[in-house]
Every structure is written in structure tokens, then in C-alpha cells.
């Protein structure tokens, strides 16, 4: 299992974000993506999540010698991003259950309870997502991203709005990825969070 970023570059219209990024993330590793605001950290993660076609180069995920593509890749990716939102008309547990079903899991009560407990939302599953505080929303997004134990976990500034115990939850999630020999990418500018990784990519505006 490895994620191979080869000569990766992206631009919006005439504005070049980054070019020539070369990186291989080995299995069981956590890679930190840093760079100033607007340098393209989020874009890089979007490309890694296969949500965006890069302007040049490629971001391929290898299970064996062959690249994982299409629906298969979607099923093995978990993603947290500030632009992502969950359904505000549903409760936390219903949101979790919906995404679990899309991943092919059978979300019964025990499953939902343990998933909520893991991100410290025990007892709040019946509250509506709209009524959650921003930190709780972030916790629920982390829980959704971890559904089905994805081999590729992409965290885009996951520490926003999280308290000290929230940071512990993140560290635990990264440890789990390491244990199951997956790959994690963490885009952040927090000095504390930068210490969690094994490797580092610096995205700089061209």
C-alpha cells in the first residue's frame, strides 16, 4: 500500500497553485502537508481524494502493483474538510447511519453507539446536527471519515474548533491508521499537529 504523488501540479485558470510535487507515502505513515494560506493544501488533498483531476501529474494509490481507481478508491478513502457539511435536518446518529450504508455497512444501534463514543459524542446521537456546536460537528465529521476503516485518511485542517480531548481523538485516529497499515495525510499549520507526522510535504505557491 502506497500513495504516489508524481509531478503533481494544479492551477485555476492562469493562477498556478503548485507544480512538480513528488512524494511517496509508504504504508503506516502519516504525512503532514503544510504551506501558507492559499498555497493549495486543500487542493492537494482534494486531488488525493480523487475528487479533483490534477492539471498535471498524477496521484495514484497502490494496493499491490496495480493502482486502485474509481469506485474502489472511493470506498477506501476517508476525508475531512472544512468545506464538507453533513445534513442539518438529521441527527448525528442518522447522519452516521446514512454514510455507513453508503459504505456498505449495517449500522445497528451498537455500531452507531461505539462510533459516537469514539469521537466523544456519547449520548448526543439523538440531537440534530444543526444543534451541534462547531466542535461537535467537527467530531462527527471525523467519525464519518473513519467509517469502514478507510486505508487512506485525508484530514484537511481537522483541528479547527477542537479542544484538547478532540486533539487526542485525532491522534488516536492517526494511530489506528498506522496500525492497519493505511496512509494518512494531514494538512495543517499548527506546530503541535505538525509533530504527529512521520514525513512532511511543503506546498508553496509558485
Amino acid at each position, binding site marked *: 500500500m502506497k500513495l504516489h504523488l508524481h509531478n503533481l501540479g494544479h492551477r485555476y485558470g492562469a493562477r498556478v497553485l503548485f507544480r512538480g510535487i513528488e512524494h511517496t507515502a509508504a504504508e503506516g505513515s502519516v504525512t503532514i502537508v503544510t504551506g501558507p494560506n492559499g498555497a493549495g493544501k486543500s487542493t492537494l488533498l482534494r486531488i488525493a*481524494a480523487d*475528487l*479533483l483531476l490534477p492539471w498535471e501529474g498524477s496521484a495514484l494509490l497502490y494496493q499491490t502493483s496495480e493502482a486502485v481507481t*474509481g*469506485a*474502489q478508491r*472511493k*470506498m*477506501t*478513502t476517508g*476525508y475531512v*474538510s472544512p*468545506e*464538507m*457539511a*453533513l*445534513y*442539518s*435536518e*438529521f441527527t448525528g446518529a*442518522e447522519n452516521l447511519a*446514512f*454514510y455507513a*450504508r*453508503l*459504505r*456498505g455497512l449495517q449500522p445497528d444501534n451498537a455500531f452507531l453507539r461505539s462510533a459516537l463514543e469514539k469521537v466523544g459524542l456519547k449520548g448526543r446521537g439523538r440531537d440534530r446536527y444543526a444543534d451541534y456546536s462547531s466542535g461537535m460537528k467537527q467530531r462527527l465529521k471525523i467519525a*464519518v471519515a473513519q467509517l*469502514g476503516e478507510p486505508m487512506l485518511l485525508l484530514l484537511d485542517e481537522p483541528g479547527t474548533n477542537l479542544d484538547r480531548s478532540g486533539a487526542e481523538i485525532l491522534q488516536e485516529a492517526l494511530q489506528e491508521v498506522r496500525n492497519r497499515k493505511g496512509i494518512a495525510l494531514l494538512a495543517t499549520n499548527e506546530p503541535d499537529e505538525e509533530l504527529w507526522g512521520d514525513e512532511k510535504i511543503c506546498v508553496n505557491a509558485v
Partner: protein
Amino acid sequence: MNSMPWHKQAAALWKKDIRAEMRTRVATGSMGVFALSALLLIALSMLSVKGVEYRDALGRLKPAWDDAGKMALLWTLLCFAAFTGLAHPFVHEEESGTSLALRLYMSAEAVYAGKLLFNLTTLAAMMLVITPAYMLLTGMNTGRLILFFPIMIGGCFGLGSVATVVAALAAKAKSSGALFGAIGLPILVVFLILLMQAAHLCYAGNATPISIVKDVGGLVSFGVMIVALSAMLFHFIWDD
């Protein structure tokens, strides 16, 4: 981990949408209120032609507002009602930012299938309420039932399929609500012409089997062609 079959994902999305609709009632509520008030307006404005008769080219006396005309007006009403509510499933996902997660968790085909199914369900539910009410208020007959039901079902299918793909397109544009009707209704005009042609048949006594197959077939094939093309092209709309 194996990939999920698309129809299971589509069913999950459909269930989610139905459940959200039960809770917020945005689409059905706006469509229902629009359709009922339009229905009332039509019934009131057509009171003046209720008993009027005219002589056609062959000198026969005919009611000015016959069953085929009533059917045409019913479908005009349903089209406009559909275009007030059916943009909601896509526009809501785009505006609230939930589309990003759907893009990651589902394949484009599954999203299209789920949304199409939801729109068809909503439309069918609305028609089940509006059509009997319309028939009561205006005195429209069903004509030949063996034609009436295929026309209604074919009409619902075509209308829903056009509304779904146009809603997906409009949701990506600025001020999507205004665009939705403007780019959808020109496509539907042709469909409405086909529908009126089939409706005439439903009330004509002398319809031949060939003309029935031609007109109802044309009606149904319109919806089938739209669904086929949009399923083929949906990932171009959906993916960034």
C-alpha cells in the same frame, strides 16, 4: 473492501431524501401549495367557457373546453408545479455543502439514480393528489382507462426525468432557482405537445391501434431517451 453496487447506494440516497422531505416538506409543500392555488385559478377562470359550444370545420357542435383541453391544462399546471419544487434535492445539496461528501461516498450514476427516483416519487405523490382534485373541480373524464393510465405514467416519467437533469445543471449555476425554469421549460414544450397529442387519442372514439402505439410510444420514448442521455452524461455535471 469491495465496492458497493450502485443500486444499493441509490436506494440509500432515496431513503435519505424521502426522510428529509418528511421532516422539512420543502419540495412537496411548495409544489402542493402552488398546484392547488393554480388549480383553483384555472377552475375559476374557466367558469366562463363551461357551457359554451362551437361549430367545428365539419359543422358539428363541440364543447369549447373539452376533455382533451382539460387534460392539456392539467399537464401545463403539473409542469409548472414540478418546476417549483423539483430543483430542491440538488440545489439543497450544493448550497448546504453536503454534495462534497456525496461525491466522495457515491458514484455519479448512483447519485443520478437516487435523485431521479426521489423526484419521480414526489411527482407521483403530487399527481395522485392533484389529478383527482382537478377532475372533481373541472369535471374532466378519464376517457379510456387503458390509455389514461399509460399517459399519466409516461407523462410523470418524462416530466421527472427532464426536471432531474435540468435541476442538476441549474444547481451548478449562480441564481439556480431562476435558471431552472428558464432552461427546463423549453425542453418540456415539445414533450407537452406529444402529451396533448396522446391525450386527444384518449378521448377520441376512433383511435386505431397504430396511432395509439405511435403517440403513447412517442411519449414514453421521450422520457427514456432523456434518462439514457442523462445517465450517460451525469458524471460530467456532478464531478468537479
